[in-house]
């Protein structure tokens, strides 16, 4: 054991008594600001303790403290009882990040195992270490371990990578496993597999600390929930109690239901209007190295009407994003006939006129990557008006500021650089930037999938309000989350590059025809049903839109309008 940060007040915990690890009044101060303040947490063997809260609420800092790790330059106070010998496993949000791209999967696993077989005679060590590694991979539900060990991380799927990281923790003999946002950005099928896996880990008697803003997963797994906000514990209770009777206002907001776009009246009205975007016979290809191309997407017919929100649903890799990129002119390898207001739209961005460029705008999933980190947000937002509508600098700045304020981003934030804004705030800025072009079609590609519930709801509320306020605006909402898709007027379901089903949201969700749609809904429902630990005994008022996931969104308290809880400051 080397390089483990000494934890203040740490004392080894020899027995197998509960809890395995305990943190009392943890306070972590970085640069005079307390990023974690007075957090108390107990992890018991075989139990799942969930830390819930928006990004930046101090979940990860608390989780890493259990590993004895702190941000650089942090002052730490509090009483920490860490696990003896540092037997704590860590599963990060992006498992690929902790797998060495230049080494085979076997590398770190073998190194961990080697430390455990030192007591054996030299000749037996290698075989014993290998035995242990294979055992751990099997326990992590990775079949065909022998071949897997010879692979490089990039040759594995995301799910396999995650299980390899889990195998590392199991091999270590971890008594606590900290899982940091393990399901963020995953489609429902993958999500439910991760939930099963973590449940299996807990069943082995390992204490699981789950850091997540995904309430479905927390519901399905947690025995004990700690709600955090701005570094403080807002509420901490056994899961059943928290779901049934949340005491704090913030917890209630967190559990609250999502808004809806679809208003049956307007849905009927939009159906009769002329389509703003008309796609016929689209085939998209990807270049396949140097030899030839593969067809990755086929969409014979797709229409978007003014004022309508069309959701494109499917698993990751189903071609949703490729379809959207074709429409936006970002993907050139395709044949199609796209008509914007009746006139054909050139295939590539380069051949589109300014007006055509402005008409179709794209908001990306990773807002942080979509901003230049060296210029202020306001400048970058204003740039759209200058480039696409030939506005002068002053007007553009004024318009940008107005748009940002309208979307709930105060002026002092607009003058900052992207690094100082949270993910949700940046996503709002990205929306403002796209809107400044006065687009006819706004494509939102998974723009809420990396965000916590409260922030996500804020963004979705904003979209609802936009759709209502701007008559000529239409929305394409790409998502793998059926609950989000349920907010749209119409839904198109994609699977393996084919549009398998499309129709009005209500019809599709209540009466799905295609087997893939049915299985997608079943998975979502099952994940929600995993919350069976807590009965869904809420005041379930009548829903205007049938939400497919049943109990995934049980709380239905108030604030369905556009001015419900925005993201935190």
């Amino acid at each position, binding site marked *: 054991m080397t390089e483990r940060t000494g934890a203040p007040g740490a004392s080894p915990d020899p027995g197998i008594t509960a809890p395995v690890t305990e943190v009392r009044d943890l306070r972590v101060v970085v640069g005079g600001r307390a990023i974690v303040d007075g957090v108390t947490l107990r992890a018991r063997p075989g139990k799942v303790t969930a830390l819930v809260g928006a990004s930046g609420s101090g979940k990860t800092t608390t989780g890493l403290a259990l590993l004895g*790790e702190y941000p650089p330059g942090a002052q730490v106070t509090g009483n920490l009882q860490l696990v003896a010998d540092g037997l704590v496993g860590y599963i990060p949000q992006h498992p690929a990040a902790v797998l060495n791209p230049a080494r085979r999967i076997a590398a770190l696993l073998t190194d961990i195992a080697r430390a455990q077989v030192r007591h054996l005679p030299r000749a037996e060590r290698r075989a014993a270490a290998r035995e242990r590694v294979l055992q751990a991979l099997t326990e992590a539900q990775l079949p065909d371990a022998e071949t897997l060990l010879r692979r490089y991380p990039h040759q594995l799927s995301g799910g396999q990578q995650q299980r390899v990281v889990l195998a590392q923790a199991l091999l270590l003999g971890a008594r606590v496993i900290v899982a940091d946002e393990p399901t963020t950005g995953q489609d429902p099928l993958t999500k439910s597999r991760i939930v099963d896996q973590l449940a299996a880990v807990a069943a082995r008697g390992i204490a699981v600390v789950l850091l997540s803003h995904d309430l479905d997963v927390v519901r399905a797994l947690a025995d004990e929930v700690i709600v955090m906000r701005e570094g403080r514990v807002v509420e901490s209770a056994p899961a059943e109690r928290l779901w049934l009777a949340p005491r704090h206002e913030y917890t209630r907001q967190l559990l609250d239901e999502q808004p809806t776009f679809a208003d049956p009246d307007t849905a009927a009205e939009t159906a009769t209007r002329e389509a703003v975007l008309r796609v016929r016979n689209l085939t998209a290809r990807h270049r396949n190295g140097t030899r030839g191309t593969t067809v990755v997407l086929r969409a014979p017919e797709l229409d978007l009407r003014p004022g309508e929100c069309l959701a494109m649903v499917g698993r990751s890799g189903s071609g949703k994003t490729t379809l959207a990129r074709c429409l936006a002119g970002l993907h050139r390898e395709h044949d199609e006939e796209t008509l914007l207001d009746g006139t054909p739209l050139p295939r590539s961005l380069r051949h589109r006129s300014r007006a055509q460029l402005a008409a179709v705008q794209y908001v990306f999933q990773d807002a942080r990557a979509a901003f230049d980190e060296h210029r202020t947000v306001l400048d970058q937002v204003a740039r759209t008006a200058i480039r696409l509508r030939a506005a002068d600098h002053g007007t553009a700045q004024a318009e940008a500021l107005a748009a940002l304020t309208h979307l709930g981003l105060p002026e002092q934030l607009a003058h900052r650089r992207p690094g100082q804004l949270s993910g949700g705030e940046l996503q709002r800025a990205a929306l403002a930037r796209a809107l400044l072009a006065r687009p006819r079609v706004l494509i939102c590609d998974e723009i809420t999938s990396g965000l916590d519930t409260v922030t996500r709801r804020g963004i979705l509320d904003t979209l609802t309000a936009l759709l209502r306020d701007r008559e000529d605006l239409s929305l394409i909402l790409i998502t793998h989350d059926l609950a989000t898709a349920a907010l749209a007027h119409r839904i198109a379901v994609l699977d393996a590059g084919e549009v398998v089903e499309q129709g009005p949201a209500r019809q599709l969700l209540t009466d799905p025809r295609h087997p893939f749609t049915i299985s997608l809904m079943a998975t979502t429902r099952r994940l929600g049903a995993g919350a069976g630990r807590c009965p869904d005994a809420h005041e379930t008022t009548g829903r205007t839109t049938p939400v497919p996931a049943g109990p995934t969104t049980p709380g239905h308290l108030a604030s369905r309008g556009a001015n419900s809880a925005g993201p935190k400051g």
Partner: protein
Amino acid sequence: MRGLRSLVARRLLLGIVQTTAVVLLIFALTEALPGDAAVALAGDQPDSARIEAIRKAMHLDRPAPERLIEWVTGLLHGDLGTSLTSGRPVSSYLTGGFGPTLLLATLTVALLVPLGFGLGILAARHAGGLIDRLVSSMTLAVYAVPEFALGVLLVTVLALRLGWLPPTAVGYGTDLLAHPAALVLPVLVLLSRPVCSLTRLVRAGMIDALASPYVAQARRYGISGARIHLTHALPGALAPAAQHLARTIDWLLCGVIVVEALYTIPGLGTVLLNAVAERDVPVVQGLAVLFGVLTVVLNLGADLVAHRLAPRAGVAA
């Protein structure tokens, strides 16, 4: 692996095209130079009748394309032709010059790899500390000195002032191994800049890798410091270093004209220098073919090594 094999095939084909282009270019350039082998042979007082006679004897009066075609046909049969000035086969020039050049290159690389990696790892381990600053500033300073300046400086100080080492390899022939003292200065000069660039590359790669989440994970799971440095952080730094090393070896085998001339080492650089001075076109062309093939093969080798070390990056054709 089929992709890899087709890559190798494609790269070799491309290499043949590149080498051909180099040979044609060299031929055209030597044709364009004023004077030819006959003028060079005719001596200090050229008499036009004599030059014509020599030209005729050497077949230099025939048109250039004809001579080129003849030479290429010979090349396809494995015959590099004969020198215009001495009448010896070109291949004997190449084999004669290759020995000393290869010896210098081998010695240099044998010292370069441990030194470059060692210093790089050392600096990365103490990143930001005194050792790191020392290594970084020294490598930067040495890298800034051109090799001819360093060569002259070393000769002046170590050979002429202090008399520790012979200033040049004059009189030792091609058997340089028998006189190791004569090799010290050229190897030092050859080593100076590559060591610095390799050290800095390895250091940068290691520092990146040491700050990465995968190294943090290895630390977290109790892997010892030395193991982390050598088996978890270093592999990430190896791919760029391997590419750099291939280019250095290429340079050592094909183009150390300045150092060979300075220390009068009878290697390929000296052969090239003399051949150009005497307008000995077949020898120049023979060297061009050799250098072309070496460059193609070394770069392909480096790409394959890099592909093995950083499999994710892929290899551009």
